[in-house]
């Protein structure tokens, strides 16, 4: 009965797969007392990036670590959780993370669902262009140029609707696709926050190839998102941020992560989000 044996083997393999994968899900939510779970970006060089060693690096990560240290959590008690843009409010209000530090602009719409501490950084919407490209110095130069943005981003839509209606907008799945195009001259400019762009431009492999246009198309105040109404935590984080600025750690982190991009970053902003 070879057939029977084969069918049994297949069935057994399928069951094994089910059991194996069934156990893979779930897991702890990291809510135990002595650990802190922080939401960051995993895929933004310079801001929040999971590296090949499984470690985390970037300006947002440094800020998160500093704040956690001030709250009484040493490095090994921090657990980082991926906080994609669309998920940040959900993660905070579900209590999955204690706070989020991930290119999180303070807006009134978001403040309806979460509270912020900070801001700790002032970014602007900007353009990334090739280093040798001098034809784009203002937003209207984008008319008839190829502009790239990622799906779900509103920055490119703003440019197209308000500043350069004739821009040839291409919407791709991720920044890596846009950068590949920019490098190979099938894209003339990539638009999003200058901090994010600087993160890419500062990458070892990209150094000297791209530059920021420095247009300041908008103001983006990055804050630390936390549960609505948690005034105690907000106060503590604000204090930690003040300390980070005054003891020079802020300056050091900015230099380390954005320095190589020739990015003229704004000085540390004043804390505005107070209880």
């Amino acid at each position: 009965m070879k057939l029977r044996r084969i069918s049994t083997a297949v069935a057994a393999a399928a069951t094994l797969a089910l059991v194996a994968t069934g156990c893979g899900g779930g897991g702890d939510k990291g809510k135990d007392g002595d650990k802190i779970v922080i939401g960051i970006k995993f895929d933004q060089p310079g801001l929040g990036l999971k590296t090949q060693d499984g470690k985390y690096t970037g300006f947002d990560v440094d800020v998160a670590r500093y704040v956690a240290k001030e709250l009484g959590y040493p490095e090994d008690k921090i657990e980082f959780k991926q906080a994609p843009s669309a998920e940040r409010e959900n993660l905070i209000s579900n209590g999955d993370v204690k706070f989020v530090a991930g290119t999180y602009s303070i807006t009134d719409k978001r403040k309806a669902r979460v509270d912020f501490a900070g801001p700790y950084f002032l970014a602007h919407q900007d353009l990334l262009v090739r280093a040798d490209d001098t034809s784009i110095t203002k937003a209207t130069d984008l008319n008839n140029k190829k502009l790239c943005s990622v799906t779900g981003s509103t920055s490119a839509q703003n440019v197209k609707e308000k500043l350069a209606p004739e821009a040839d907008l291409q919407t791709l799945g991720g920044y890596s696709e846009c950068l590949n195009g920019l490098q190979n001259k099938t894209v003339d400019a990539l638009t999003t926050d200058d901090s994010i762009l600087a993160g890419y431009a500062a990458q070892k492999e990209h150094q000297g190839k791209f530059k920021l246009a420095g247009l300041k198309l908008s103001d983006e105040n990055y804050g630390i998102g936390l549960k609505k109404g948690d005034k105690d935590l907000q106060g503590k984080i604000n204090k930690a941020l003040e300390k980070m600025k005054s003891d020079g750690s802020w300056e050091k982190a900015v230099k380390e992560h954005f320095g190589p991009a020739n990015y003229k970053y704004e000085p540390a902003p004043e804390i505005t989000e107070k209880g």
Partner: protein
Amino acid sequence: MTSVLYDAPGPGAKRRNIIYTVVFVVLIGLAAWWVLATMDEKNQLDADKWSPFVTDSRVWTTFLLPGLLETLKAAALSLVIALPLGAILGIGRLSDHAWISVPVGVVVEFFRSIPVLIMMVFAHQLFVLFSTIDSEVRPLYAVVTGLVLYNASVIAEIVRSGIQSLPTGQTDAAKAIGMRKGQMMLFVLLPQAVTAMLPALVSQLVVIVKDTALGGAILGFNELLFQVRTITANYGANTIAALTVVALIFILVNFALTSFASWLERRLREGKKSTGAMVDRNVIDAAGGMGAAL
């Protein structure tokens, strides 16, 4: 059959074949040379873009292998859930009662005729709005839901044709010894149909594996294709290299599955105990294989 299309080559034909071969080689060689030259000109062949995949084992342990695991996990879960569901739908469609077979038929045809991507997108948003599923696994759930809905209906058709492919003597004999409809299905038809269906089911697994990539590109499911982005975020401008490696892994996995399906089919055809019934893999492939969006 193919050799019937032309005579055994004589001296002239042999010469002609050699000329064709040379021309073909030259054309392909020129195309390949041009592609490589252009890639080199754009610095896409630089060693530092490709070497991480050979020299840096962390590319594999941090990105590629975990990504592959997610891909296989989604594929395995989808198949395991879709199998029983598909079997029930397939048998339901063969029911003698119109009040069962007609609605089941409508459901099967509906999910077979809409793209798997829009089911995934729908499921993803459904979970965002009406569930507390953690954001880290939500894309996995959405991809699996979409794949289950689609593949259950494809498997229903495989099951139906598997049962219909059995010789009618099986049904007659079962009836003759006084089996009820349920007994006949459970003890006579299904066990034999399973062996007839196995190759088609393995082929369907290839389709499922290919479909998971859609979740990576559009829903942010961190499967294998998605790793192209995380790798380039770490290693810089090596999008082309990363995409090539990922494509190769997909091809290898699927090639192994396809070969397994062919081996299984041969094995089952040779088996003496089999009725010789077999669900035509290519027909299902043409419908399901392509239909599954990838």
